[in-house]
């Protein structure tokens, strides 16, 4: 009676574990929420780019033609509709990376480590590295696809108002700048990696939710600081008597020019005499800024920087996981 035999022979038939569909299944609520948000924002942006921008432009045209000595009628509702919904959609696209970071920290990694289902997966034929790779890749794909379409739609909605609607945002308005271009996608991906890292570090859902958002705030703040310096800026100068109007583009720096051509910050002064003395040194003024032509270079360099950060964060995720699991 030799019942105690060797191992099962099935070991030889090796296949790849089918993990992807289960990541999709397990995070179906998040995926549905993303799909819903995408559909709503996309719908609004399409409306903004078309009829709503046209109506608002028409409203402004009437308004500008008004002679204010007589009663004047213009479509204020259309003007406000474009303005409000433009702001809401821009806001949504800017908040998205923070939501992604919080979700990734809480649901994607933190909760699975907290409840032990991560360990379940690792003892069910999925290596920890593969477990993490699929968990990063699937949402990354969904986010890249979704945000790419949304920033394109947003850019259309913005361009539809440009030059036609007086209250349309400038290209360098912080919210508009990100929502209009690929930095939105890059920020969302950075949020994904930052959140996943937070979850792996804390191994608990709720604290990881907070840390993910904190990480994202750090990334966002640093990006804002670095952004103007990621492409060589243009400097304009003006003689002392001339007015140099700021706001021709994304400002980097401005101040006084000395007679030798050196740059000085604008002095603070509170009385005419003091100001006269302070400005006595000025031979002129300078303004360093990015014109609209720098829009794409700035978008691309910022996105590249964010993607590099994303890569480093993802690498950190794998290293942390490796240290925690044998």
């Amino acid at each position, binding site marked *: *009676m*030799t*019942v*105690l035999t060797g191992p099962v022979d099935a070991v030889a038939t090796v296949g790849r574990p089918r993990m992807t569909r289960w990541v999709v299944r397990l995070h179906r609520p998040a995926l549905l929420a993303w799909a819903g948000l995408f559909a709503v924002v996309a719908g609004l942006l399409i409306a903004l780019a078309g009829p709503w921008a046209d109506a608002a432009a028409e409203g402004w045209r009437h308004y500008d033609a008004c002679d204010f000595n007589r009663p004047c009628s213009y479509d204020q509702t259309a003007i406000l509709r474009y303005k409000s919904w433009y702001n809401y959609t821009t806001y949504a696209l800017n908040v998205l990376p923070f939501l992604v970071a919080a979700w990734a920290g809480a649901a994607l990694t933190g909760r699975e480590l907290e409840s032990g289902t991560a360990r379940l997966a690792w003892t069910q034929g999925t290596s920890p590295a593969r477990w993490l790779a699929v968990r990063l890749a699937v949402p990354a794909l969904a986010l890249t696809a979704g945000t790419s379409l949304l920033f394109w739609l947003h850019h259309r909605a913005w361009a539809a108002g440009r030059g036609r609607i007086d209250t349309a945002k400038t290209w360098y308005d912080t919210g508009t700048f990100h929502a209009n271009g690929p930095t939105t996608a890059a920020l969302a991906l950075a949020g994904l990696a930052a959140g996943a890292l937070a979850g792996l570090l804390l191994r608990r859902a709720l604290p990881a939710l907070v840390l993910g958002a904190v990480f994202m705030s750090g990334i966002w703040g640093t990006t804002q600081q670095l952004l103007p310096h990621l492409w060589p800026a243009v400097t304009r100068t003006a003689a002392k008597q001339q007015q140099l109007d700021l706001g021709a583009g994304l400002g980097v720096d401005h101040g006084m020019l000395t007679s030798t051509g050196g740059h000085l910050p604008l002095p603070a002064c509170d009385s005419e005499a003091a100001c006269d003395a302070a400005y006595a040194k000025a031979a002129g003024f300078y303004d360093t800024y990015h014109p609209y032509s720098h829009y794409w270079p700035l978008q691309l360099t910022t996105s590249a920087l964010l993607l590099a950060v994303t890569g480093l964060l993802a690498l950190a995720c794998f290293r942390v996981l490796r240290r925690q699991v044998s």
Partner: protein
Amino acid sequence: MVEYRIDRHSGVATYVQIVQQTKQALRMGLLRPGDRLPTAREVVEATAINPNTVLKAYRELEREGLVEARRGLGTFVRRSLGAATADAALRAELETWTDRAREAGLDREDVAALFTAVLDQRFAVPDAHAAEPGTRVTADGTRRDTEHTQHTQHTQHTANSQGDPS
């Protein structure tokens, strides 16, 4: 087919219980030559005992020539137990002896104790707990000699039969 019933609190080693119950079934004619014993898998699935315990019991039965293992087929009964005629004669003698004991004033428990004592003395029953004490177990990696613990065997059985199962 025989079904084993394991009593955890009997103080009798599990494999001994299987051996005894198999023999019981052979005596009562529930198992006959050619019959297949349940596989280890079947036994352990029903009883939740360790498979090696079942195999140990079957090896013991095989050693006694009661069953034989046929590779890949199972374990089969080779011969039955207990000749009816010898049984009847012995039983008659035992009945006579028991009557005499009763007449001598022994009560039920006295008779049982006496019988068990003689049984233990005349039959080298397998240790109720474990195989040969002292063997295989080492600390320094060498096999320890069994001799020095051998003499404790008897004491131990006596202790057990006095109703002191460990």
